């Protein structure tokens, strides 16, 4: 009987605490005020694991194709470069202002701190999933609502080659016809 009372008291305490936090407005939602380390870790792990599970069954097509690079390059320039940057660019208003900061796609995964050997297929299918579905409360839109799978794979193909492109190569590939 005593255990049941303790359990009910704990549940009530958790609910009351949660309601107090939600309605008191004490959580700072400003993008210029970063999360604490624990909250950041929790959100990052949740996001990474969710994407990994959701994308695990996606088949990756052959991405080494010139036409895919041309189509994906133009879309990247108009839809992605303002946040994810272009060769030679270190930052933009969007990359500075968004929180969490959008990844700089002009640098390789090793430069992002991945010490393990990168599984290119895994990276590609996760990029496809993120471009298609977006990420809640991050500024990343769901491009799948307005772009078909083929165009999204073209973007993935371009992003795969982006870290190796020079500013000149980037300019030519992403320019208009």
């Amino acid at each position: 009987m005593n255990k049941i009372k303790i359990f009910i008291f704990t549940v009530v305490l958790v609910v009351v605490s949660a309601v107090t936090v939600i309605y008191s407005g004490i959580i700072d939602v400003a993008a210029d005020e970063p999360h604490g380390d624990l909250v950041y870790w929790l959100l990052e792990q949740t996001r990474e694991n969710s994407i990994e599970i959701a994308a695990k069954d996606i088949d990756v097509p052959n991405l080494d194709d010139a036409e895919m690079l041309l189509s994906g390059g133009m879309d990247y320039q108009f839809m992605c470069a303002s946040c994810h940057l272009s060769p030679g660019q270190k930052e933009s208003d969007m990359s500075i202002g968004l929180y969490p900061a959008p990844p700089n796609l002009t640098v390789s995964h090793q430069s992002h701190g991945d010490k393990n050997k990168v599984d290119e297929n895994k990276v590609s299918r996760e990029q496809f999933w993120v471009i298609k579905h977006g990420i809640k409360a991050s500024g990343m839109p769901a491009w799948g609502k307005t772009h078909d799978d083929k165009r999204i794979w073209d973007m993935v193909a371009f992003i795969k080659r982006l870290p190796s492109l020079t500013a000149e190569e980037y300019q030519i590939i992403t320019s208009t016809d």
Partner: protein
Amino acid sequence: MNILTKVAVILIPTLALSMSVSAHDPKLHGKKAEKADCSKMDHTKMDMKDPVSMAMMKKCMKQEKHATEEKAKMDHSKMDMKKEPKKEVDTIEG
């Protein structure tokens, strides 16, 4: 005021202003679509089996073809090269 102070007085605000400009460059807001700058393509360093090189070649060939077609559309035979542009002159009618 010695020269060093004068230089500092001019240089420090100039540097501060130029830094704020690079952080928020208004030119980036209205970035227009650009044509490919194919003059910077170095064919000698290109691996023609690489998709990036192939994409660049396709883009530049397409652009060149488009420019040639545009040029061909102009019918020079109908153009009067000696004709001066019309001048809008107000005439006084009496």
